[in-house]
């Protein structure tokens, strides 16, 4: 708690000038640079994931077409594309951008300290993450091709090369996922320890901005849930390469064990990526509605409750995997229960907006669209959580549309919301609002046009992971095929609008108007640092006097009240 020794800080600034170009961009221990590394790596992976989606959607809508930029998609390539689309979007886009990039950038700045508690561990975390990407991309080019047994890696497809047809690709895939976990375990320990120990003097538990809380809770959830899957990944690698039979029923193993280990992690993982976005949205709507966050403590306790409950819902992914129906009943109940805290958070946000002085900036549009689209994802989840309805809907496009209505708001909308909001701080320049709004509408409208038809297709019985529907007479009906084509064309439109975003991003990065310290007139500490903050963040670290959401406080000249302002 002691005040900072100033000499130490000078040493930091001094070292900064001597850094070579390579050290500055690739060997930095500065949390802001590592955040940007994660951000840009994650966005590059999103381009790969998006390209894969484009390839397989073209094949679904126009079977046998020579996909421009890829060529004719073979059945095994199709499986490879969908597998890696899923894995990349979850493990190499949502996780690095939402947790690692925003966590790294925001935690030290929002709690008022100069860096993460373990800067070198932080750098190592990114390097291992990068290594996991190298392994993943290498797996695409080995004999047999990349892994094609779905991102959930169910045995026996993943364990037996004679079924999966990708002997080397499968092992490299599991290794890449395991390395990625190691990277995020290191990052998570750093995040949680930093947030617990390094808060600015005066910052009490309930003065911590919601997004920091959410990233911390998400990191704890990740740490507590990923262990069994790490053990499972080791067991799967042994099954693949050393002749063990953990998941092989012929020799006394059990393939359903993998599903338990995977989903014990996989379901909390949904909340691991959801919570940071929920936090980002909380920051944005309070700033642009100029209102205090409605029920701060309730949101916080709800997030903890969601975290605990998220460990008790995993088997709803396995209702048709042959689990005991009595167990299915229990998991139906817990799954329906978890919709309550999430719905409550959404109501709290709507209550925050109620009566606010709302400005529809680009980040605010993204934040509002998160609430709207995630609600659709949440409501359709009720159908799937009920084991009876799930038996019919399982593995159809209904499931697929449902989780894209959750993950798209989480990963894509959350990223755009956070990036457009913190861009002035990160890069010291403003993004173009007009282009931002065009990009917003050009993304959100096609998004709905992609996935609403898929709900209809799923309810009509169209199964996922099928290479060519014309082989199935009951699914080859023209009205269903036209819906698939409409979805694919909407995807093309949406991908096209991302070019506009990339242009806006890179143009603003170099030529955007200079940003002032606090362009949005926000309260939290990061806005009191320079834009962009120097190494060490502040010449003198701030002290905190109040909570983060004191907007429109009666009797004050300004409608905001920064956390570090003495009065």
């Amino acid at each position, binding site marked *: 708690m002691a005040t900072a020794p100033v000499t130490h800080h000078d040493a930091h600034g001094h070292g900064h000038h001597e850094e070579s170009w390579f050290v500055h961009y690739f060997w930095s221990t500065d949390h802001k640079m590592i955040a940007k590394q994660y951000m840009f790596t994650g966005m590059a992976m999103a381009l790969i994931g998006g390209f894969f989606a484009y390839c397989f959607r073209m094949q679904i809508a126009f079977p046998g077409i020579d996909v421009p930029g890829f060529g004719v998609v073979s059945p095994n390539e199709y499986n490879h594309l969908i597998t890696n689309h899923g894995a990349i979007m979850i493990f190499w886009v949502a996780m690095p951008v939402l947790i690692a990039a925003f966590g790294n950038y925001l935690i030290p700045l929002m709690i008022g300290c100069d860096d993460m508690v373990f800067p070198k561990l932080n750098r190592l975390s990114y390097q291992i993450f990068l290594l996991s990407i190298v392994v993943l991309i290498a797996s695409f080019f080995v004999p047999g091709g990349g892994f094609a047994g779905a991102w959930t890696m169910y045995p026996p497809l993943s364990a037996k090369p004679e079924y999966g047809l990708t002997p080397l690709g499968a092992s490299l895939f599991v290794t890449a996922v395991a390395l990625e976990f190691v990277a995020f375990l290191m990052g998570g320990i750093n995040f949680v320890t930093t947030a617990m120990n390094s808060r600015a003097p005066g910052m009490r538990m309930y003065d911590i901005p919601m997004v920091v809380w959410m990233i911390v809770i998400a990191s704890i959830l990740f740490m507590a849930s*990923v262990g069994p899957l790490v053990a499972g990944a080791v067991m799967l690698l042994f099954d693949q390469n050393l002749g063990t039979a953990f998941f092989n029923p012929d020799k006394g193993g059990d393939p359903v064990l993998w599903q338990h280990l995977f989903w014990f992690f996989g379901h909390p993982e949904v909340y691991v990526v959801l919570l940071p976005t929920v936090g980002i949205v909380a920051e944005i709507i309070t700033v642009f509605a100029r209102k205090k966050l409605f029920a701060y403590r309730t949101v916080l306790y709800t997030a903890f409750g969601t975290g605990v409950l998220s460990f008790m819902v995993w088997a709803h992914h396995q209702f048709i995997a042959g689990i005991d129906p009595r167990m299915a009943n229990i998991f139906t109940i817990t799954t329906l229960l978890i919709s309550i805290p999430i719905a409550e958070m959404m109501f709290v946000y709507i209550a925050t907006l109620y009566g606010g002085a709302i400005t529809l900036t680009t980040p605010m549009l993204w934040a509002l669209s998160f609430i709207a689209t995630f609600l659709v994802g949440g409501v359709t989840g009720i159908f799937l959580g009920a084991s009876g309805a799930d038996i019919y809907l399982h593995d159809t496009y209904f499931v697929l549309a449902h989780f894209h209505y959750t993950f798209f708001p989480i990963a894509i909308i959350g990223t755009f919301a956070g990036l457009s909001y913190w861009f002035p701080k990160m890069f010291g320049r403003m993004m173009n609002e007009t282009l931002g709004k065009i990009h917003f509408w050009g993304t959100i409208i096609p998004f709905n046009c992609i996935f609403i038809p898929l709900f209809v297709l799923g309810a009509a019985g169209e199964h996922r992971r099928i290479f060519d529907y014309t082989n199935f007479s009951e699914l080859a009906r023209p009205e269903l095929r036209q819906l698939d084509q409409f979805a694919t064309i909407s995807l093309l439109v949406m991908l096209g609008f991302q070019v506009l975003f990339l242009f806006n991003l890179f143009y603003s990065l170099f030529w955007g108007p200079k940003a002032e310290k606090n362009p949005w007139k926000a309260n939290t500490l990061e806005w009191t640092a320079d834009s962009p903050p120097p190494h060490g963040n502040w010449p003198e670290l701030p002290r905190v006097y109040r909570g983060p959401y004191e907007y429109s406080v009666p009797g004050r000249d300004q409608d905001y009240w920064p956390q570090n302002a003495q009065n």
Partner: protein
Amino acid sequence: MSARPIATTRSAAGMPTGRLAVWWVIASEIVIFGGLLGSYVMFRLSHDSFASDAANTNMYIGAFNTWVLLTSSLFAVLGHKAAEEGNGPKAARMLWLTVGGGAVFLLVKTYEWYEKIHHGHTLSSSTFFSFYYTAAGLHALHVIAGMIIMLFVANTARKNLELHRVELIGIYWHFVDVVWIFLFPLLYIAK
């Protein structure tokens, strides 16, 4: 870049940063071993064949190794005590004794595995032995990692530097010990 950030020196939670982080490391390790041992227990309860396979493990060797690890933990505690008294060289000696305990443990383990493999009980001969080698192997990896880190810590502690690290590696070593306390009855005693 040699100096630590101010963030590292703060302790708003009332615990030194290093100790807090080690506890989080252990929390994440518990679920790794928890998943593996949980799977093992579920298999064990539903497969009678495990009992006949388990009859081949040698309880006396396991008990000896338990004693070796517990004794090495005693040295880790003595090292912590010496570090708190500011006696770096003594703390380093105690850590070397702890590493020695880990080495004896690994040697015994090597003999034990050699004998098992010699009798045809390999990683892939049955699901019980798959678990036996995977769980004990994962634990042995933690022992080796702990020994390597401990040698680094002892090397700085010898010069009376970074003495707080003696406690941190000690906490980790006790955790590795506790994992073995779970493995020993599950793999060796329950027949």
